[in-house]
């Protein structure tokens, strides 16, 4: 049934996601190759993989983003495919193209689709054409202040200026008054240019109290596509997700069906294959708007795995092998409630990074608790990479029980030697608004001003 059979996969990533991919490869009987920088020679992904290749010095640009090194590593170890994880090269059209040229299967969609979804303006245009609701806004990059003011009047204030090549909140500007627009536009363009080497920006309606809801999909090479329900990702700080849930406490089965069906149809229209995520802004009136599509596995995929019992990494690999999906939408069963807390090596109040040696590390166990981590006692968190050191995931019958379980798990989790966001998550779990499920993307802002 498979077009190709993977005997060996190289994981072009580090940290927990590299381990996560290795675990599934082990379960599938596929051999693994880890690549690592000099700073990661003692990392867990290096030890769990069957083979390991050092690909450069600590800075990402010279190692985990170093395409020639990674491709060479793939060639000397003779792998069939490369799994990019998330971040680093996961959404690099160039990398996917080089893999293709070198006859190594990139576990993800085609370079063309990666490129299309990586450009916000093009993604927006494509999705609109595929029938996905988008925020009223500019169809093309905005060049002049005159053009911006004209459009803003049509859309209505407040509006938001975003970098076409952006992400993670950089290059975003909210404008509430016409007079502020020219100056803000200029700043946003300059920021976009500095951050992404691309000064293109576009504008769209700004929603005051939105929720961030995303739909997980799985699509094979033959046009079969299903969604795995939504994830609630509203709890963010500076556009960085802190914790995620599945299902969302406010999405009805009808909304799930509607959002899911739209995402599935769009995937089929653009010929998408791989796991993927549609990020939506949900307004207070229940209307929702496409924000962006992530063409890779996401940090928060475990909450979906918990409630659906799907192994998303396994499905990515099966799809890349050219297997048929084998599930229909009717097979989807969402059982219970799952929450994921991202444990970062950060000061829980000031959010300053806290790299260093972990002197004690204890992982909670017992019913309904999952930990995805690449950390161990004695491990030194290097200062070069992302600060996330572990994902603590719980699953229980109801959201209330899941919150209780998360509190227990957070209390049982011991990380000494560095500061972590565990105390912050405990406070959030005890927050009344969080417990009620009554929040918007402004939650953390309001929470932090109340709790400090």
């Amino acid at each position: 049934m498979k077009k190709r059979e993977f005997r060996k996969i190289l994981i072009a990533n580090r940290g927990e996601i590299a381990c996560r991919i290795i675990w599934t490869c082990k379960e599938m009987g596929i051999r693994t190759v880890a690549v690592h920088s000099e700073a990661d020679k003692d990392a867990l992904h290096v030890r769990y993989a069957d083979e390991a290749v050092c690909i450069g010095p600590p800075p990402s640009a010279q190692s985990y983003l170093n395409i020639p090194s990674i491709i060479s590593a793939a060639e000397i170890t003779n792998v069939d495919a490369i799994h990019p994880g998330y971040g680093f090269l996961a959404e690099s059209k160039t990398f996917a193209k080089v893999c293709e040229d070198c006859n190594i299967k990139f576990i993800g969609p085609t370079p063309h689709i990666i490129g299309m979804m990586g450009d916000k303006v093009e993604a927006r245009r494509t999705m609109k054409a595929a029938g996905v609701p988008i925020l009223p806004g500019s169809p093309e990059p905005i060049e002049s202040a005159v053009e911006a003011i004209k459009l803003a009047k049509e859309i209505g204030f407040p509006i938001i200026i975003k970098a076409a090549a952006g992400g993670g909140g950089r290059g975003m500007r909210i404008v509430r008054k016409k007079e502020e627009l020219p100056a803000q536009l200029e700043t946003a363009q300059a920021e976009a240019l500095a951050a992404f080497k691309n000064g293109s920006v576009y504008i769209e309606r700004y929603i005051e109290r939105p929720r961030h809801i995303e739909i997980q999909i799985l699509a094979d090479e033959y046009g079969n596509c299903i969604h795995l329900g939504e994830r609630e990702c509203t709890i963010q700080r500076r556009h960085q997700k802190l914790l995620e849930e599945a299902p969302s406490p406010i999405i009805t089965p009808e909304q799930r069906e509607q959002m899911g069906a739209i995402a599935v149809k769009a995937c089929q229209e653009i010929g998408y294959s791989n796991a993927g995520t549609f990020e939506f802004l949900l307004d207070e009136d229940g209307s929702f708007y496409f924000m962006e599509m992530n063409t890779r596995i996401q940090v928060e995929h475990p909450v979906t795995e918990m409630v659906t019992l799907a192994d998303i990494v396994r499905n990515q690999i099966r799809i890349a092998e050219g297997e048929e999906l084998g599930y229909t939408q009717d097979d989807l069963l969402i059982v219970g409630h799952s929450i994921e807390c991202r444990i970062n090596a950060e000061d829980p109040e000031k959010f300053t990074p806290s790299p260093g040696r972990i002197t004690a590390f204890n992982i909670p166990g017992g019913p309904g608790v999952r930990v995805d981590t690449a950390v161990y006692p004695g491990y030194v968190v290097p200062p070069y990479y992302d600060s996330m050191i572990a994902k603590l995931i719980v699953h229980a019958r109801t959201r209330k029980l899941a919150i209780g379980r998360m509190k227990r798990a957070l209390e049982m989790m011991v990380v000494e030697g560095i500061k972590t966001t565990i105390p912050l998550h405990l406070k959030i779990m005890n927050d009344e608004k969080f417990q009620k499920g009554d929040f918007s993307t402004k939650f953390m802002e309001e929470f932090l001003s109340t709790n400090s």
Partner: protein
Amino acid sequence: MSESSAKAKEEIKGQTRGSSKKTAPKKTSQVSEPSLNMDELYELASLVDEHGFTDFEFENANIRVRLSKNPAPQIVQAVQPYAPAPAVQNKSEVKTEPVSAETAIDEDLHIIISEIVGTFYSASAPDKEPYVKLGSTVTPEMTVCIIEAMKLMNEIQAEVAGEVVKIYVENGQPVEYGQPLFGIRK
């Protein structure tokens, strides 16, 4: 960062790359300030700590700084437990003869390392003689080997003059970043 801590950083970088043990930093004479300020000390401490050093000393005509840390005795224990036996046993394909650290230090060799991940070739073509052999004398511009990466043949220069006294890799062998290729006695 003031000049003195910048220098310190240089030293540290040098140590990391050279993989040789605590070579005493050369004395610099161009330190403008007779003492460290606290900002510099902050930077210095976190710098040394981040790199996991257990000892740091610095001195010049005016000042001398030393930071040291007792190496945690559980390093081996704490690190080793998490190497799962099966994975370790299977690892062999990209393995090469690791260069003995003592050898490198004792003989004070210059080690030519691979800056590229790829396949090592000792000669320009299968039917040609190797660029260098044990005992060959090299000049800095001389090509000592080829590393093939992504179908490109990269000629590697010696960069130092001396005698080839160690060859750590074999023709056709895959090499990773930072892997020792040759030992050159200057």
